[in-house]
């Protein structure tokens, strides 16, 4: 009781003047942040606003460049996750912290409180199993290898692993992104219970209705700084979005061009299925059209894009390019002039670029293998580099030294040099600053107006609404909704992403 009283006076966690620099990039800049026990504190911000860096500092994964972290009013140095754990700071990471080759039981044992290098005791497992049972995870076998679990199952295990550590401060960083609506509700019940027992909860989510349902207080971050902290309900959705973006959303996006319903169909995919993970997907993209692919992470939309670019074996269905039935067996085929597809992968650092090499070398990668182009000719890239306004200190500069936005521009430039008929983009603005985002939006619109067909996969509703002429929402390997014009609203996209209609129907059946 006495301890609790003192907790009320001192915030559980206080961060003073925290900065974190990565080279020239300031991920966090002079941030003050306070977290109280018995409170769910949501942290909002765009990708790249500094949320994840903040969480990593608290979890001991990163150390601040400047500033001080205090727990119960005492300054601490969190030099490793182990140190953070010893203060009761537990993080459920967005990138899962489960070891793929070990079983669920072994993973839980590894993370159990007090687990060292000695004999592992299984008492703590009871708590984890209890948590799993409460969040509809009872079917997860303790002996199953984590690599064999589905993404939602892994998140459930991750939640159990975090809860069994009996945290004083629990960080949920996109912890429920892959979970179905009913499981999310169970998780929230659990979180509320923890809160009522005095645990502080830091909650990061891109789903605004989740934040509204769970958070007591909200802090908004933008460009590495905390913009404002307020009680839930003090500001409405639009105000909060404006805080996150720093300007009106409408100003970010270029005006839509009126759709041309009779333009040539560039890409026509019918009944695309693969490996039981994608089922009967139809997609039709016309010249000058931007078609969005939405849905929660891992519902098959990124696999589908890969498949279009010839990365998936034994896919079924028909593909026609400009009316010609075509079979695309590999990226090399896909980029030839007859097909002229280009694919901007989700993870530019590992799939889109060779970080240690220069800009010029990276640019050449796409044109190599096209017999009709001279990949080494700088003139090939001049136009697209200019269009993208790439900032660089010479074309021999390693791309690793560029900012995220400029790196993405290099990836775009290397493909635009091939003058693709159809551009497949997998979340091209993830982790990119607002200014570059706006530029990329403008370029995509410009390309579309010049006749390129664009397929844009995005996790950002606003992009799907403001940029796309039509959006297909994926759920569990299928397209569950195709929205256009007036139906293209945030509510409809969210509902379709969670497959709400089908769920409620199933509940009544």
């Amino acid at each position, binding site marked *: 009781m006495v301890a609790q009283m003192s907790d009320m006076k001192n915030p559980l966690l206080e961060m003073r003047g925290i900065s974190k620099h990565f080279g020239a990039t300031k991920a966090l800049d002079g941030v003050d942040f306070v977290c109280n026990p018995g409170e769910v504190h949501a942290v909002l911000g765009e990708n790249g606003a500094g949320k994840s860096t903040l969480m990593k500092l608290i979890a001991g*994964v990163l150390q601040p460049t400047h500033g001080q972290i205090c727990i119960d009013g005492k300054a601490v140095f969190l030099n490793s996750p*182990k140190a953070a754990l010893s203060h009761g700071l537990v993080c459920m990471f967005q990138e899962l912290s489960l070891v793929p*080759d*070990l079983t669920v039981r072994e*993973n839980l044992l590894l993370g159990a409180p007090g687990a060292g*290098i000695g004999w592992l005791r299984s008492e703590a497992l009871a708590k984890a199993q209890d948590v799993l049972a409460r969040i509809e995870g009872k079917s997860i*076998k303790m002996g199953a290898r984590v690599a064999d679990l589905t993404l939602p199952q892994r998140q459930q295990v991750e939640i159990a692993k975090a809860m069994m550590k009996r945290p004083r401060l629990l960080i949920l960083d996109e912890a429920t992104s892959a979970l179905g609506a009913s499981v999310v509700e169970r998780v929230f019940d659990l979180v509320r219970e923890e809160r009522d027992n005095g645990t502080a909860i830091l909650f990061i989510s891109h789903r605004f209705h989740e934040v509204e349902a769970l958070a007591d207080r909200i802090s908004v971050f933008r460009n590495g700084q905390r913009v404002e902290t307020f009680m839930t309900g003090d500001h409405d959705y639009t105000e909060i979005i404006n805080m996150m973006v720093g300007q009106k959303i409408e100003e970010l996006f270029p005006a839509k061009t009126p759709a041309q319903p009779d333009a040539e169909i560039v890409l026509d995919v019918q009944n695309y299925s*693969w*490996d039981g993970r994608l089922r009967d997907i139809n997609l039709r993209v016309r010249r000058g059209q931007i078609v969005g692919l939405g849905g929660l992470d891992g519902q098959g939309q990124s696999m589908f894009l890969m498949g279009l670019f010839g990365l998936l074996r034994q896919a079924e269905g028909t593909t026609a390019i400009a009316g010609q039935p075509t079979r695309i067996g590999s990226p090399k085929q896909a980029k030839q002039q007859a097909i002229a597809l280009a694919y901007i992968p989700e993870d530019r650092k590992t799939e889109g670029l060779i970080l240690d090499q220069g800009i010029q070398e990276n640019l050449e990668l796409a044109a190599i293998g096209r017999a009709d182009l001279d990949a080494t000719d700088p003139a090939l890239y001049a136009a697209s580099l200019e269009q993208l306004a790439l900032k660089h200190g010479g074309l021999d500069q390693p791309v690793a030294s560029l900012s995220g936005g400029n790196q993405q521009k290099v990836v775009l430039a290397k493909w635009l040099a091939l003058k693709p008929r159809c551009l497949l983009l997998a979340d091209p603005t993830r982790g990119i600053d607002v200014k570059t985002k706006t530029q990329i939006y403008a370029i995509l619109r410009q390309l579309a107006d010049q006749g390129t067909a664009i397929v844009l996969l995005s996790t950002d509703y606003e992009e799907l609404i403001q940029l796309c002429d039509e959006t297909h929402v994926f759920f569990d390997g299928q397209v569950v909704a195709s929205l256009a014009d007036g139906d293209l609203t945030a509510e409809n996209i969210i509902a379709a992403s969670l497959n709400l209609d089908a769920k409620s129907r199933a509940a009544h059946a």
Partner: protein
Amino acid sequence: MLDYLKSNRREMIAALVLIVLLAVYLGTHPRGASTYVMTIWANQCLILGLAACAQFFAVVVRGIDLSVGAVMALSNCVASYLLDGSAFGIAIGMVAVVVVGALCGLINGLVVVYGRIQPIVATLATASIFVGIALLLRPTPGGAVNYDLADAMTLDVLGIPTAMVIAGVAVIGFWLPFRRTGLGLGLYALGSSEQAAFQSGINTKFIRLAAFTLAGLFGGLAGLFYSFVTTTGDAGIAASFTLNSIAAVVLGGVLLRGGVGSLIGALAGAFILKTIAALMFFSGIPSLAQPLFEGLILAAAIAIGGADVLRARNKLEAFS
């Protein structure tokens, strides 16, 4: 039970192959399945088996140890000085030999962890150093090991080869309990996903250091047992044991990418490799052609192990 078999299928396959090979070997051996034949077979197998155990500890944390043979050579040369004389002196000597091995491993670990040098480069360098010291100790093969002790370790206990008893002790007395400790689990976590292990609050530096030290310790044990079999010290044995130890762990289902495999698999792989060599010896294949056939068998085994890639339906998985 089915789950257990499934999750340990690599070890199961290795064990099955070994049993078949051994049956063929004993069937074709001119002297048949006698304790004498079994003892010689088991001794040869266990030397490589212990070396494979050493290699396993480095590989499971996504490393590799090119100094396994060198550690064996050095501890073997040290043993050739210390394993003769009074019973007490010999006992101390045996401990000292193993400690020399563990120290070599610790040095490897320190260079890898704190020198931040890749294991393949670090152990290549230390291997030369260890062999160099071994050559200074024994410029030519020689020395002596107490014959009573050597006999006790390399003959049989109630008809069972002592080497098999030692392998059994290593598995039941050491490995199975070790697998249930935080360190044992930490090795796999580190090899499978260092990031996940770190975020789970594991001391990754300590685990890696421990892994290389264990590799050295088993290298020392291999050198010690080699001394019992040959009763001399020889600095020239390093190269072949290093290569064969890597081949053995691969055959035993330990993935070179780390995080998968077990000590049992490493032992089984070593036993398979040695049994194949022994079969070859009696098969009438000219001795000069034997490396060729051993190599082909090894290549085939590794190819089968890598066949999973062909099943991947996403082409990008082939590169991960």
